[in-house]
């Protein structure tokens, strides 16, 4: 009985939780945190149980009819292995982050903890809703919730946060408008808003001019929202100046969810037939992704601040996923989805480590990182583990998704798409640049401040730096996620099984009818 309600519960729990937290912030602030954790934990449990259910009944998706109206008349949720996996990842990541950042929230948002947690839950609701929904317009509404709460969370930061968030607000609104316009064009052509229903109609009408315009508008909108280079300019400033609990929430979540939306639009709404119908466009997208990877890796080299460097790496990772999705083969698509999972975990580790450092250090400029290894050894140890995963060293998870992406690139190259080889080249180049980036940080944090002369025995005299670790809750959450990077890597084959159960039916035209029947019942 209740198992049928998981898709709704996983949205409703954080939503109602946000309202209760908002009330509690006026009654007694000390209950806000507990309530926020409880509601998000309920959502996480629902999403994990939902994943188990979906995997059990694959390839048939779970369809939840909101308001009891049959699709396409009402709004319905559509859950297959693909989005069930993303749901579980996003809810776990945000729950761990919430449990971890409490001390940082108290420090950075004094007096406004209640509204911070309420906005946090709303942001999570928006992102989860975007992933779970099977309705193109409902996705837009949740995009608004996610964006609005994100602007508020990012805007309340240091120095230039408000200005850079205003910039984000403009770009985000433009991106969302493009998406909405695209949905409008789709409605003109099909008269429906249900994703699977649209796909069914499009297979009959084919790729008319209106459909192609809708497709390009939707893709441009989503690419702006996920900050694919060269439409990335809003992201580095907005994330760098934000407070550390806000950026460690938004960074692992937003770009990944937008990549999921891109994949969902490519596979479910427009179907591979139309999406990959124009080889020059596919090729261009792979080139664009390659440019994003290389360009952002180079921009990261120029950064003199740890958090800014991380934001550029984050955008480079967006290039990995977009490129993998547009390679047009199963391996590349699997790699892209696997990278959504892994990159969410890796980004969380990096930004939590940055949050720990920001808690104790004056700033995250490279000059202020000197002696960080002596000062906060545990934080730096987990930071190293995260960096190793970002570079892509086995057995951490970063290696495996890059492996799939490389394989996909080679396959695409062998199939006659030159961009596939370019994509592989830029992937390897960016991994090498990651090595330089992270070892530069290690060098500064480990070896500096430099020794001042030598003592009687010829040993270098190094200034003594007392250990001053971040609060245990922060480091504990960081440790948990850092260990998860290795665990995710070791369980890659299981995750890939789930992803393939989700992706293969969407790429296989013979199974389209099964899905269509499951959703619309006719």
């Amino acid at each position: 009985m209740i198992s049928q309600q998981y898709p709704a519960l996983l949205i409703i729990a954080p939503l109602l939780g946000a309202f209760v937290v908002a009330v509690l912030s006026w009654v007694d602030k000390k209950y806000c945190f507990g309530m926020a954790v409880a509601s998000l934990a309920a959502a996480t449990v629902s999403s994990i149980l939902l994943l188990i259910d979906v995997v059990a009944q694959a390839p048939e998706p779970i369809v939840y009819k909101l308001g009891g109206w049959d699709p396409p008349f009402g709004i319905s949720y559509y859950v297959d292995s693909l989005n069930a996996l993303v749901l579980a990842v996003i809810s776990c990541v945000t729950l761990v982050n919430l449990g971890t950042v409490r001390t940082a929230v108290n420090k950075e948002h004094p007096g406004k903890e209640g509204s911070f947690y309420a906005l946090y839950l709303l942001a999570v609701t928006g992102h989860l809703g975007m992933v779970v929904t099977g309705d193109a317009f409902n996705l837009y509404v949740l995009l608004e919730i996610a964006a609005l709460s994100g602007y508020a969370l990012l805007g309340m930061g240091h120095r230039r946060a408000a200005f850079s968030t205003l910039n984000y607000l403009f770009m985000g609104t433009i991106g969302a408008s493009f998406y909405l316009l695209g949905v409008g064009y789709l409605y003109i052509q099909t008269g429906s808003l249900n994703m699977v229903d649209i796909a069914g109609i499009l297979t009959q009408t084919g790729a008319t001019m209106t459909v192609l315009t809708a497709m390009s508008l939707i893709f441009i909108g989503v690419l702006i929202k996920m900050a694919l280079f060269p439409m990335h300019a809003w992201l580095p400033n907005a994330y760098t100046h934000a407070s550390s609990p806000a950026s460690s929430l938004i960074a692992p979540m937003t770009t990944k969810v937008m990549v999921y939306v891109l994949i969902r639009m490519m596979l479910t709404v427009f179907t591979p037939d139309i999406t990959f119908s124009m080889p020059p466009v596919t090729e261009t997208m792979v080139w664009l992704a390659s440019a994003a990877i290389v360009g952002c890796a180079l921009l990261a080299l120029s950064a003199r601040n740890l958090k800014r460097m991380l934001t550029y790496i984050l955008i480079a990772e967006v290039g990995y996923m977009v490129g993998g999705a547009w390679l047009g083969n199963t391996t590349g698509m699997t790699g892209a989805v696997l990278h959504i999972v892994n990159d969410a975990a890796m980004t969380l580790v990096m930004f939590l480590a940055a949050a720990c450092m920001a808690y104790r250090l004056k700033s995250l400029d490279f000059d202020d990182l000197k002696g960080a290894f002596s000062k906060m050894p545990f934080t730096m140890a987990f930071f190293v583990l995260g960096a190793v995963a970002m570079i892509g060293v086995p057995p951490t998870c970063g290696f495996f998704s890059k492996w799939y992406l490389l394989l996909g690139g080679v396959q695409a190259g062998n199939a006659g798409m030159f961009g596939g080889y370019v994509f592989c080249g830029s992937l390897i180049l960016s991994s090498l640049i990651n090595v330089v980036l992270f070892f530069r940080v290690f060098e500064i944090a480990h070896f500096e401040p430099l020794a001042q002369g030598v003592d009687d025995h010829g040993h270098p005299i190094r200034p003594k730096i007392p250990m001053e670790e971040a609060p245990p809750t922060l480091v504990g959450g960081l440790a948990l996620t850092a260990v998860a990077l290795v665990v995710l890597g070791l369980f890659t084959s299981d995750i890939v099984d789930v992803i393939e159960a989700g992706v293969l039916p969407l790429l296989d035209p013979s199974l389209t009818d099964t899905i269509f029947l499951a959703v619309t019942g006719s």
Partner: protein
Amino acid sequence: MKILAIALCLLLGGALVFVVGDFPDWGDPMSPPNDYRLSKHFIENTMEETSVPNIVTAVLADYRGFDTMFETAVIFTAALACFFLLRTWGRRPSKPDNVYMHLLTGVHVRLKHGKTLSPQSRTFARVESEILRYDLVTSTVCRLMIPFIQLFALYVVAHGHHSPGGGFQGGVILGASFLLLAISHDLRTLRERFPEVKLMYLLIAGIVLYSGVGFACMIYGGNFLEYEALGPLMGVTPVMAHSLGILFVEIGVAMTVMATMILIYNYISSLGTYERGL
């Protein structure tokens, strides 16, 4: 760079205009949005399924009620975001100065150490600051108009599912009536009638009413927002329960929209201090 941007805009705009040629004809009854089973279903079955004569409201608050709940949540988020970003707590003196204006001459009097004059005084009126002008004509006219505006707003809310109107429109009109009070008098007058905490509770109560109705449907064995499930609870037929459910959620929407309008105005006009308006 600017020329490039203009060229890009023109190119994109031109492309969009060009695609219009591919659209179905204007007002074509056989175009996909008109001909597809979706709109046919709404036009033919709305009354039987929801007992709501206004199809737009039925689609908005019932068939696609989930979207509307999140639209309300967007408004709630906007208010909460304004609170989070703008609200500041300055040090407030325990006995603030009070400024009064002599109504006949327009001369301002500042009373120090929290001293006050009688609120019933017919010669002096309390104002927020020396800059603020107390205008007898404006304030009287607005005071006369506000009750009627509010009555009309309530009518718009209550009649949403029968005639044009609904929670969003009614909520905006209701909010506007309070803003008129704040503009024609001052923020203090509004604040005394409607303190910040009460507005916040109203804001949350509205969206909780909406999502609570949805959640109650789940508890009574339906899907989320499946109003039919509340039929036995309210003692009406399942079809009638749709109509009543829509009324409830419209009221919730109106509460949230109204509170959001007032809160955003107050935060911006008082620069986040919530003490002194424009």
